[in-house]
């Protein structure tokens, strides 16, 4: 176990000199590269430490259940505070002001819902993946297959978006070629998960969350310092520097019609409750009480982070947007509005702080893709292999072996997809991932925990209805049908399908369960009462 990690890190370190010469001198960021190396070595050390502690399936999937509520809260927050939110949300505030806040609120409000409805019952009913809870009283083969489809589609979409984003970001920040960036991210994420499982990904996530929160706090503090801690001056300076003036302090064009608004809101709120890599983290704590605490801490950290982003975004408007160093010949910010926070870090803290923030942005990408890969690999090894293929009786050690193979396969797939989608617009993929999570994973999980009359057939058919309708609506909608495929008019008129796909899913699940005439229906309904008690009280076996 020791040798592979050292081999890997020496391979990467030896690759770097060639990358250094590949990038031109003025695009290469030396402080950033050195901090990136420090971070990578640190995370590989964590992986080594985690590898020694990973022996059983429980260790690999759920860190042996030994993570505390506070640690898990930080890890979950870390999973959620991706580079897309750090750079994307601050970039949105930079470009459109108040509209960025609308988005961040949407991302946050799902957390209380998870706490009230999902977190504790999920922990009480499952062991490693959310499919454990869904298939608790239902038939394993169809339900696990459905959950695995739901998980893998969400994971792959999210991974492609992250890989392409990572490649582009690293290209700009460190001066490495795109292909090299994708390869480095891919190899590192495969190492973290294969060798260190959930223990490694959790601790990498915690370290990155602390770095990101500290960096963002310093950035926000520096912005407030510039305006003598007066919010009045902050907004006035932003309005004075922005092309739209004081209009940025009010809602803009982001939400143009009520249907899209509600649809997007539903996807953000309930999609969060269906993201497989987030749901997996609830199994890393010892009991429901710690699961509950995790959400409180996670919500606190993420909420605080969004408040910082709001200050950072507005600060960037006048500290970056009005500073010709960061604008190109047409007066547009260099690298696009996603670079607002990065340029701001240099504006307030020089090259050293720029290096730190760049390394942190890279860290966030690595941590998030690792969590996603673990969630995807678990769906393959725990849901498909161990439960369906081996009928819940996998041979000793074979489950972990399959997890590791699945991780490598997923990692390679992510790298190949990242390379193929290099110049495609992948922004819609995260939105689609959330819509699928809200239309497949959330309905089956929620109804299986709360609705007595849910049957296997209902969940199976309804879940696939949700999946197919979400994908179909996006393909025939304005984002793909018009912007990418070039047709004049979209078949499905709205950018956000969740309102329709979620309704389709819930209605189908209901109808197919009620009109289910299969023999196992009554057994499944009768089994609800015991499941319900266990969801509140916890597993008696576990307590012993």
């Amino acid at each position, binding site marked *: 176990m020791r040798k592979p990690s050292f081999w890997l890190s020496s391979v990467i370190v030896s690759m770097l000199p060639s990358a250094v010469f590949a990038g031109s001198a003025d695009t290469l960021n030396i402080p950033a590269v050195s901090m990136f190396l420090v971070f990578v070595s640190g995370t590989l050390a964590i992986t080594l430490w985690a590898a020694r502690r990973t022996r059983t399936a429980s260790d690999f999937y759920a860190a042996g259940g030994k993570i505390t509520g506070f640690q898990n809260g930080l890890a979950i927050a870390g999973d959620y505070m991706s580079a897309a939110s750090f750079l994307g949300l601050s970039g949105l505030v930079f470009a459109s002001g108040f509209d960025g806040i609308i988005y961040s609120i949407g991302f946050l409000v799902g957390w209380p819902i998870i706490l009230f409805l999902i977190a504790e019952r999920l922990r009480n009913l499952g062991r490693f993946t959310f499919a454990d809870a869904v298939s608790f009283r239902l038939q394993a083969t169809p339900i696990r297959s459905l959950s695995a489809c739901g998980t893998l589609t969400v994971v792959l979409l999210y991974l492609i978006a992250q890989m392409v984003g990572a490649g582009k970001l690293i290209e700009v920040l460190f001066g490495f070629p795109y292909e090299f960036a994708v390869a480095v991210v891919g190899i590192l994420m495969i190492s973290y998960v294969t060798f260190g499982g959930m223990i490694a990904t959790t601790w990498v996530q915690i370290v990155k969350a602390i770095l990101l929160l500290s960096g963002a706090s310093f950035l926000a503090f520096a912005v407030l310092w510039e305006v003598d801690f007066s919010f009045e001056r902050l907004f006035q300076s932003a309005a004075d520097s922005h092309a739209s003036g004081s209009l940025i302090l009010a809602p803009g064009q982001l939400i143009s019609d009520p249907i899209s*608004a509600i649809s997007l809101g539903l996807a953000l709120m309930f999609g969060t409750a269906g993201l497989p890599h987030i749901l997996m983290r609830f199994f890393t704590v010892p009991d429901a009480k710690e699961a509950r605490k995790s959400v409180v801490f996670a919500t606190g950290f993420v*909420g605080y982070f969004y408040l910082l982003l709001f200050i950072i975004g507005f600060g960037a408007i006048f500290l970056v947007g009005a500073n010709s160093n960061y604008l190109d010949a047409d007066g547009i910010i260099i690298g696009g509005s996603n670079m607002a926070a990065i340029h701001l870090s240099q504006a307030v803290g020089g090259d050293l702080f720029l290096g730190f923030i760049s390394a942190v942005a890279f860290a966030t990408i690595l941590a998030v893709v690792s969590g996603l890969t673990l969630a995807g690999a678990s769906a393959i090894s725990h849901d498909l292999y161990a439960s369906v293929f081996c009928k819940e009786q996998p041979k000793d050690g074979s489950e972990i072996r399959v997890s590791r193979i699945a991780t490598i396969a997923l990692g390679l797939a992510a790298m190949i997809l990242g390379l193929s989608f290099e110049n495609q617009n992948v922004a819609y993929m995260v939105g689609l991932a959330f819509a699928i999570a809200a239309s497949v994973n959330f309905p089956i999980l929620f109804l299986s925990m709360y609705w007595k009359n849910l049957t296997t057939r209902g969940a199976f058919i309804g879940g696939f209805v949700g999946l197919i309708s979400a994908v179909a609506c996006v393909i025939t909608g304005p984002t793909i049908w018009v912007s990418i495929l070039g047709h004049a008019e979209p078949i499905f008129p709205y950018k956000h399908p969740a309102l329709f796909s979620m309704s389709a899913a819930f209605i189908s699940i209901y109808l197919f369960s009620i009109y289910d005439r299969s023999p196992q229906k009554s057994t499944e309904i009768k089994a609800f009462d015991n499941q319900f008690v266990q969801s509140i009280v916890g597993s008696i076996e576990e307590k012993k």
Partner: protein
Amino acid sequence: MAQGTYEKISLDLNFQKLVRDRTAFSWILTGVMLLSYYTFILVIAFSPHWLGVPISTRSIITWGIPVGILLIILSMVITGVYVLRCNREYDERLSEIISRLNV
């Protein structure tokens, strides 16, 4: 046997009352979140200019900003409210029920 245990618990009247109280509490809080967030979204969709009104004649800060910040803080605080109630009341009631049933 675990099956018999769960059945025993579910028949207990105190347990049933606890479930009713907890469920009501969870759904009330869920309702608060849904109502606040969707009101905000619908105002933005139908009357966005309400949020564009400055909070005072001497200020450039619009109503949208404190409303947005309050929603963020509400989300954080409401999770704390739920956990405090569970820790102080519901957990105790549950462990009492379980120990009295001798399981």
